């Protein structure tokens, strides 16, 4: 059964959650992003954030361990209880994508300590294509707006506890998201060398915006930061990107993905083909952030749509 809350009561509800939890929610600075809420009034729920949630699970420059005088000190992840409010269906699925590949303790701990509250998308924009990506239902709570109320679906015990004091709904409100954009074909393996890709590659600046803002991109680099004079240092994990030459460079200077084409296509093929081969799920959740963020307006979804795959077309 769904729970129900008046829209005008939402801020008070969130405020009450803030007593016991750190609440993370979308806010709008120059661009929309997730932040730890200081004030429920700051919440901005009108559009998908451009900056994804992932930094709260995969923080930049995360210290894996410190060392001093030849002794290693393991970094202890603080287990703060958090709630993320206002996640879109794509955002929620992005976490499932990360769960399959991120198995280090810092990540798992953060996942376990976080309650996920979703929000139905009233207004998908021209870049949203989540319906093409076979997404799952995954949430602790999920809010559907209807009239002056939210109808709240419960997905877990943790979620149920948060809304136990709210009224039961008199009816069930569920809605399907309506996308305008579509990824028409995901069977693109044989299209790797199609000439259509060249136009995108020619426009690509290898700036990495697509990967940094993609909620499922998780490639990283490990660096050791030394303070020799103090006999100390730390090992940190920082976000990297397949669009950069530095990412595939190994000792001796060999760069495995040297050409811009191989880097650009790797992004698309990892999302649609490679990950799928291993997990039978798509790595792309159709949020469209890569398209919104691209400074040269590359749209790989339309490129795929424009490739008419012919039978027996090997190249």
């Amino acid at each position, binding site marked *: 059964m769904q729970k129900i809350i008046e829209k005008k009561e939402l801020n008070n509800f969130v405020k009450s959650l803030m007593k016991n939890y750190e609440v993370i929610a979308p806010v709008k*600075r*120059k*661009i929309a*992003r997730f932040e730890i809420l200081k004030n429920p009034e700051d919440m901005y729920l009108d559009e998908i954030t451009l*900056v994804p949630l992932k*930094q709260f699970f995969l923080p*930049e420059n995360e210290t894996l361990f410190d060392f001093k005088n030849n002794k290693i000190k393991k970094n202890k992840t603080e287990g703060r209880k958090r709630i993320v409010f206002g996640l879109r269906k794509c955002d929620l699925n992005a976490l499932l994508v990360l769960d399959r590949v991120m198995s280090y303790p810092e990540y798992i701990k953060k996942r376990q300590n976080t309650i996920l509250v979703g929000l139905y998308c009233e207004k998908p924009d021209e870049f949203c294509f989540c319906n093409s990506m076979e997404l799952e239902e995954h949430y602790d709570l999920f809010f559907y707006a209807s009239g002056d109320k939210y109808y709240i679906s419960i997905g877990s015990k943790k979620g149920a506890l948060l809304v136990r004091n709210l009224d039961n709904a008199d009816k069930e409100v569920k809605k399907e998201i309506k996308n305008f954009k579509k990824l028409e074909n995901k069977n693109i393996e044989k299209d790797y060398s199609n000439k259509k890709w060249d136009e995108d590659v*020619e*426009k*690509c*600046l*290898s*700036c*990495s*915006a697509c990967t*940094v*803002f993609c909620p499922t991109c998780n490639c990283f680099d490990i660096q050791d*930061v*030394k*303070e*020799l*004079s103090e006999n100390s240092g730390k090992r940190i994990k920082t*976000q990297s*990107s397949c669009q*950069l*030459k*530095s990412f595939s460079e190994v000792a001796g200077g060999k760069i495995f993905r040297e050409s*811009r084409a191989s880097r650009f296509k790797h992004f698309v093929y990892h999302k649609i083909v490679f990950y799928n081969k291993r997990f039978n799920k798509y790595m792309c959740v159709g949020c469209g952030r890569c398209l919104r*963020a691209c*400074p*040269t307006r590359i749209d790989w979804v339309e490129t795929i749509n424009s490739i008419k795959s012919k039978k027996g077309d090997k190249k």
Partner: protein
Amino acid sequence: MNLQNKNNSKLKAGIFGISGCSGCLLSILFEDTFKKINDLLEIKSFPLIKEDKYKGDFDIVFIEGTVVFDDDIIFLDEIRKRSKIVAALGACSCFGGVPSIKNFKDDEKTMRFVYPKHNHLKSEKPTPINLHIKVDYYLPQCPPNKEEIVSFVNHLASGTQFKNCQDPVCMECRKKGNACLLEEGELCLGPVSNGGCSALCPSNGVGCYGCRGPSKDANMNAYTANLKKRGYNKKSIKDKMETFAGLSFEEEMEKDSKWLGK
């Protein structure tokens, strides 16, 4: 290159400037940078703060400034012979810096404007130091990045490999979650410039000037085509590129034929 001596004594260092503003040298003195590198290096010469009487050899010298006068070249040749490693410090030393804007202007006109009464003065072409001596390491930026200097010295002293950031400024800028200035109507060289500065300028609302030099991976054709769509002309883009590393940007642009054509 492993320079650590057998008896574990500190590396002998010199910190010099040729034609420049001394800003880079000063940035070594600021905050705890000096303390941190002084712990690891035996600083034999640093004429900015102490009279230089040392006549011996160095393991490492840092050089700030642009080559403008014959004296600069004579000094560089001498110092190169005395040091195992030479590191170019700052945008001037690495790329020519602000003085090298002169290379792109009408020499005579500029001369007469700046020195209307000194007809006997001769104008020189400012150049980066690697056009005159071999340079082993680059510590670019205007002024140079203090953390990078400390990290470089740490690597040198422990015999591990130092590498500059090779990723474009955009990478660090996006990681910070900044709104892109290009989308806000501000000319930014981030996509074609080398990062390593934590996207200092865009993070403060100013478009990148490329003071860490052009990115070796820059897609100049796509970048300039995109800027033209946004309403910038070739001159405004060139002007921005010529601020700190014009000679290097010019070299990088020449590789992209389409850009030269239009």
